[in-house]
């Protein structure tokens, strides 16, 4: 979205809200509208229904702690339009002590979990939120980890020089407050579980044949460490309450303590099934912040790798989803092809999964000579292999019985909850970021966006199968465009100069030294580029402050929003259908909990 568009919407907002809105002064960006906290609900309603045709899809709300500034916290809302193909940022600012703002949950239901996350991580209260509890950290955690005055924590590393001084459990004490509660936290947690199961989470018991059961966090078909509280009437699910945070890794906090190149490596570990997709989203945001264009060859290779990643991610989904429903052979077939793709990743980056191959400025290295032949071999066999999977499942009566009409969600609900990716398209909404807001030149590729009609597990299955076919098509086209050339931008202040140049130029030597020791510097501003990974809308929101480290690194992850809609899909289903439905929204807990 261009700055001019934001300005146009701002001018309309000025007519309506007067002095309560202003235009953000941050440079290098698409701009955002700043709203007085007291008008946030009116403004949000206006944005949803009227502003420039309306923005129906709630992307995220993200907080930034500007410690020392008054007002202290920025809340940035990002909303999208699924029909007009654009997005808008607007902000409100709240101050210490006791920061609070009105909740927008009743306007955008999808805001529910995002607001809870901000409450958990920043301690901003949302008035009128129906269920404002911690979401990622344990219930009785003290402090709000993403505030800038909260220590990073962890353990000091033991070297031989300081080995004796450090006891393994040392954690940095917080200023004035004992934030780390020690291992007592772990000791008391089981009782809080029981409480939650018996009374909490607003589960209503009428005492008449209702039962609350616990599913997870250790359960073979929750795809990781998801915990679900299911309230049952016989075998029918009356209500489902997801409990997440069992894999909370502090990726955003750690990323803010590292420089940009180092923070890139954390993104691999977020959605570990599409590492290249995460690398790409992060790199695009950082490139936007520093105003850098990667060369043509790098962009084409990025498309190839993003699509290969989509295929391998869908293969894991298909294999495990089928396994959950009792079809074991699909698992072995899918992993056979996935290994073929991982071999190519290993060829170019040296590792199978955590590649960090796509980086700000282009790619880490050019592809090896044997990459293109290997890719051609894969492209040759893949359509037949895809046919094999379909023979196993698409017309299989057991598969149809387990998936058709199960876990339904309507198009309106899916959009309202911020569901994206194939989970949204299964309900018939033709919204794919690659088409709606193209990046990496996706507008020049010829491909279809498959959509379903019923919004059930089976339609989501068909959508993903067809997406793999379309990805195959895109890779074929990209491969035919691949021309020799550089894969890194010629920007010496960001991309380290080649070895040959260092021996001849003093300036190159200095750049190389600075980039490797300190990292490259990004100007103050904000970078945000929406992308489409295998799971849906992924965007990084990077706030630079003129230092080599991101001041704020926030990931809007698709699984987080998709999981939020799970209770809606499960209403009225059977317990066994819960397994099918969880499999069909293709969640990765690593990016939900971050």
């Amino acid at each position: 979205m261009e700055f001019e568009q934001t300005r146009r919407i701002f001018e309309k907002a000025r007519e309506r809200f007067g002095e309560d809105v202003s235009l953000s002064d941050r440079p290098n960006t698409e701009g955002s509208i700043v709203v007085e906290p007291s008008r946030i609900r009116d403004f949000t309603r206006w944005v949803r229904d009227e502003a420039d045709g309306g923005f129906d899809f709630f992307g995220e709300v993200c907080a930034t702690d500007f410690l020392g500034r008054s007002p202290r916290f920025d809340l940035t809302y990002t909303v999208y339009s699924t029909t007009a193909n654009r997005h808008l940022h607007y902000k409100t600012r709240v101050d210490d002590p006791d920061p609070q703002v009105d909740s927008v949950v009743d306007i955008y239901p999808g805001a529910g979990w995002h607001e809870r996350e901000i409450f958990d991580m920043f301690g901003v209260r949302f008035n009128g939120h129906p269920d404002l509890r911690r979401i990622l950290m344990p219930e009785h955690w003290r402090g709000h980890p993403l505030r800038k005055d909260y220590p990073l924590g962890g353990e000091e590393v033991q070297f031989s020089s300081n080995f004796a001084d450090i006891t393994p459990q040392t954690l940095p004490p917080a200023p004035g407050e004992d934030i780390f509660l020690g291992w007592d936290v772990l000791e008391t947690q089981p009782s809080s579980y029981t409480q939650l199961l018996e009374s909490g989470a607003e589960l209503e018991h009428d005492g008449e044949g209702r039962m609350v059961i616990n599913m997870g966090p250790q359960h073979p078909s929750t795809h990781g460490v998801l915990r679900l509280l299911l309230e049952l009437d016989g075998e029918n699910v009356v209500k489902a309450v997801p409990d997440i945070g069992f894999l909370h890794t502090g990726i955003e906090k750690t990323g803010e303590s590292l420089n940009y190149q180092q923070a890139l490596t954390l993104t691999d570990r977020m959605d570990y099934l599409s590492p290249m997709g995460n690398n790409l989203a992060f790199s695009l945001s950082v490139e936007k912040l520093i105003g850098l264009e990667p060369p043509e060859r790098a962009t084409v290779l990025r498309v190839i790798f993003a699509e290969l990643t989509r295929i391998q991610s869908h293969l894991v989904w298909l294999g495990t989803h089928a396994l959950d429903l009792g079809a074991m052979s699909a698992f072995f077939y899918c992993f056979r092809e996935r290994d073929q793709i991982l071999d190519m990743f290993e060829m170019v980056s040296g590792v199978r999964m955590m590649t960090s191959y796509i980086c700000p400025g282009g790619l880490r290295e050019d592809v090896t000579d044997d990459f293109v032949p290997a890719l051609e071999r894969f492209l040759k066999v893949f359509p037949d292999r895809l046919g094999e999977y379909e023979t196993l499942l698409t017309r299989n009566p057991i598969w149809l019985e387990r998936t058709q009409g199960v876990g339904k969600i309507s198009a309106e609900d899916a959009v309202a909850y911020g569901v994206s990716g194939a989970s949204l398209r299964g309900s018939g909404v033709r919204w794919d970021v690659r088409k709606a807001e193209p990046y990496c030149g996706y507008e020049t590729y010829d491909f279809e966006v498959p959509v379903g009609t019923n919004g059930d597990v089976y339609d989501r299955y068909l959508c993903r199968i067809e997406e793999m076919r379309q990805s195959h098509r895109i890779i074929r086209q990209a491969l035919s465009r691949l021309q020799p050339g550089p894969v890194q931008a010629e920007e010496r202040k960001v991309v380290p100069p080649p070895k040959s140049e260092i021996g001849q130029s003093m300036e190159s030597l200095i750049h190389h030294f600075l980039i490797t020791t300190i990292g490259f510097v990004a100007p103050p501003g904000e970078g945000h580029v929406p992308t489409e990974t295998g799971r849906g809308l992924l965007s990084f929101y990077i706030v630079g402050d003129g230092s080599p480290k991101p001041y704020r690194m926030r990931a809007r992850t698709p699984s987080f929003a998709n999981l939020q809609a799970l209770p809606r899909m499960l209403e009225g289903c059977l317990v066994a259908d819960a397994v099918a439905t969880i499999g069909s929204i293709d969640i990765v807990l690593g990016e939900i909990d971050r």
Partner: protein
Amino acid sequence: MANSHDVVPGVVFSTVDKVARWAQSSSLWPFAFGLACCAIEMMSTVAGRFDIARFGAEVFRASPRQADLMIVAGRVSMKMGPVIKRLYDQMPDPKWVIAMGACSSCGGVFNNYAIIQGVDKVIPVDVYVPGCPPNPDALLYAVTRLQEKIRSGEARPGHRILEPAAGSLSESIHTS
């Protein structure tokens, strides 16, 4: 456990023990329990190309009560720590633990407030596998190393209390 062949009453006992250890090592039943990225490589290890069945450890069980090997595949968060401890306690003796990957071995790149710096602060570990994530080959090597340890009697089945450092906060966990 007797290990001397020249003590007469020990002969039979020692042999049975050896046979038992051989049997235990050759039919490890891992616990189907994945946490993060490493769990995906653990799944690759089960699939056809690497095929953990060659080492008799393919029977992944979804219940801790049917498993004797816990592969901690991924980072262990503060919220997950007590859950892992409980799952470990639910596994019947004899039982073993492989810490797969850098995170479960030592916290990996996530040295922060959210991650327990090594699962060995919560449960005892027999084999550590380096890597982020380790290749399936590395996991297979860890399984064979564990088998060797079981056969040699080095990896002792069942509970072991770690020795907590003086005044350590972890004391309460291990002795409870």
